[in-house]
């Protein structure tokens, strides 16, 4: 019976593992959290249907506003640094003039292999006031400098987080950029050189325009990652986001709301709204990229 139908159904069977996994772990949670976002669900008992109230409450939730602003600040600060830094490093490491390129690539990528928790704790210890290594160096300079309050000064929270992101992620950006650079035809560079372009002009007029899709891809990736970031701020600042909630990011707030206060409906609404924000930001980035 099955024998005669097998040739027809076989392709579907072979591709079904992806769809089964996607439906169970991808589509279902997305749809279910959408449903949950419309319910005042505290966890223990099935809550009441509240329509869009969870979404409306977000607009007057000062924590949510704070988290979104902090995350945007983090994105504006860390995005250009990691993407720009990655591009500059990639250009340097793509140069035929540089020796030991493989070693440098490995060194820059190594932080990605370090556990996030380990990295966070190490930074937390390094930046501790007044006993951390960094402050120890500052105090030993004999310049009568005050130790820097990296972790408890509200103004320093996002820059400190940026420092950790930069250290950990620049290697990843470097690899993406390097792949982009290596896909550019050498003939274009040769043509530029024959036309008398300087290395800087070559970078601006040849490399950069051709790298736009890669930079765009990296920017979208950075945006998504920053809005979803959890482990780094959690380890550095705890679930409250540190002093004055200066280190409270959207990822941290979604976690706190859902898994500390057990407000799953509100947390789901938050996640959905953030999904929309990420989608809009990505769209803007795409449009800007296409226009260029």
């Amino acid at each position, binding site marked *: 019976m099955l024998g005669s139908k097998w040739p027809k159904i076989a392709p579907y069977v072979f591709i079904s593992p992806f769809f089964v996994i996607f439906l169970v772990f991808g589509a279902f949670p997305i749809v279910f959290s959408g449903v949950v976002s419309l319910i005042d669900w505290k966890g223990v008992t099935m809550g009441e249907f509240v329509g869009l109230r969870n979404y409306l409450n977000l607009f007057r939730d000062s*924590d949510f506003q704070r988290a979104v602003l902090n995350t945007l600040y983090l994105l504006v600060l860390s995005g250009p640094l990691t993407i720009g830094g990655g591009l500059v490093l990639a250009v340097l490491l793509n140069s035929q003039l540089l020796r030991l390129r493989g070693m440098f690539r490995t060194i820059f990528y190594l932080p990605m292999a370090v556990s996030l928790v380990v990295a966070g704790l190490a930074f937390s210890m390094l930046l501790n006031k007044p006993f951390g290594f960094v402050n120890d160096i500052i105090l030993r300079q004999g310049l009568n400098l005050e130790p820097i309050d990296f972790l408890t000064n509200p103004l320093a929270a996002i820059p400190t987080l940026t420092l950790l992101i930069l250290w950990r992620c620049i290697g990843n950006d470097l690899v993406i950029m390097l792949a982009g650079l290596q896909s550019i035809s050498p003939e274009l560079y040769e043509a530029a050189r024959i036309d008398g372009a300087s290395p800087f002009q070559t970078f601006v007029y040849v490399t950069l325009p051709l790298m736009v899709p890669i930079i765009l891809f990296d920017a979208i990736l950075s945006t998504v990652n920053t809005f979803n970031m959890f482990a780094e701020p959690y380890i550095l600042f705890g679930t409250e986001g540190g002093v004055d909630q200066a280190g409270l990011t959207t990822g941290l707030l979604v976690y706190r709301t859902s898994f500390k206060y057990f407000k799953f409906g509100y947390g789901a609404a938050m996640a959905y709204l953030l999904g929309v924000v990420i989608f809009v930001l990505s769209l803007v980035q795409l449009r800007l990229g296409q226009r260029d």
Partner: protein
Amino acid sequence: MAPHRTSLMSRRAFLRLSAGTATAAWLGSTTFGRVLAQESTPIPTPTPIPGLSGEVIVWGWKGGIEHFLAVIPDLQKLYPDVSVRVEEMSYEDTHTNILAVVNTGVGVPDVVNFDVNHLGEFAEGMTDLTDRLQPYLEEIMPVSVKLATYKGRILGVPQDSQPVGMFYRHDLFEQYGIDAAQVETYADLIEAGRKVAKATNGEVKMLAMDVGSKICMGDPHLIIDLLLVQNGLGGTYFNREDDKVLVDSPEAIEAMEVLKQISDEEICFIDMSDDAAVAAYAADKILATVAPGWFPLAMTGNLPQLSGKWRMMRLPAIKPGGLRASYQIPSITAIPKGAPNPDAAWELIRMAQVSLEGQLRFTEMTGGVMPTWKRALDTLKDQEVEYFGGQKIYALFIEIAQDIPDVWFGRGWPEARSIIRKHTETVIRREKTPEEACKAAAEEMRVKLNKG
């Protein structure tokens, strides 16, 4: 406690570190060891449940589960067909997983440990233990029972006691001419603090807290919580019916005003992390701190060089003649609804926690965390603690525990604490008046917790 920088001296971190190891030598010289060897009075003798069998699964975090492991051989003598599996998880995971199972009904364990401030959240998913605990209620400190009760139902067996007192440097008080007996109110404390600041040109201060309004060397337990309870708000933020937010009541505003006064930079280091505070205590820069029952043991471990120099007193009162007692959040042990083996679970809890032997064993295994049974506490009260110059600090803790008024936790309490913490910071930083901060906190709580 979250694995971040403030975990050094939290109660949970302390329990985790101390469980059965660090303080064993210290315990050898205390009353616990001797009392364990004595024949204790059976209170009352329960009748074994016939035919009990199956597996009992226990969930909890390190520091709160060892006494369950220790009681397994005794349990199996009584019930050979009962086995016990203790599943250790992190503090956060324990609470998250409890909520998940009571909600879904899948994989429900038989015994769960959780901090009592989550009681309002878990109440619907926990078995009412009122009848089971009834024969033992006379034995347990009333405040511990109150904290484990939600809307008239006892939903958990109290595990530890955390009355709060004020610790002060006896030698430094003498040096600066401060008579601890005269410090009866926070106003007295502030006055004494000013005296010290004047004498030392501001280098030495009475108190220390971090800008997040955390008591130095303690859990992120807000000073404002202590003050609210002291000023008559037994549910800290909520009313007894758990349907109204009270943090903008005149009592709450008055408590916040006291917080503002004691966080004055003249008398208090307001931006001091735990690590920095330890260094400052060692350097004789801080004279006093407010902390609960586990704290003396942590001090012994972290500041051994200050042995004999500390003393303990009651908290100052908000007003002359006012309440000088408050508490920190303890843990309770409960049986979730839908637990596969509730009778065996109860027998395990009874032997581990609802007996004098169990209580003493818990105290021993946690390195000296205060138990909840009156008779177990009695074994501590005559103990002269060398670190505190031979003072009987446990006797004082017990007195304080007896004076703690009617107290309870409501739904959404952890979130409410986060909200009040945020607004308290604005008072400490002098950005808002106490009234403004209390009103803003109350408004936020009402919106987020859907209470009146």
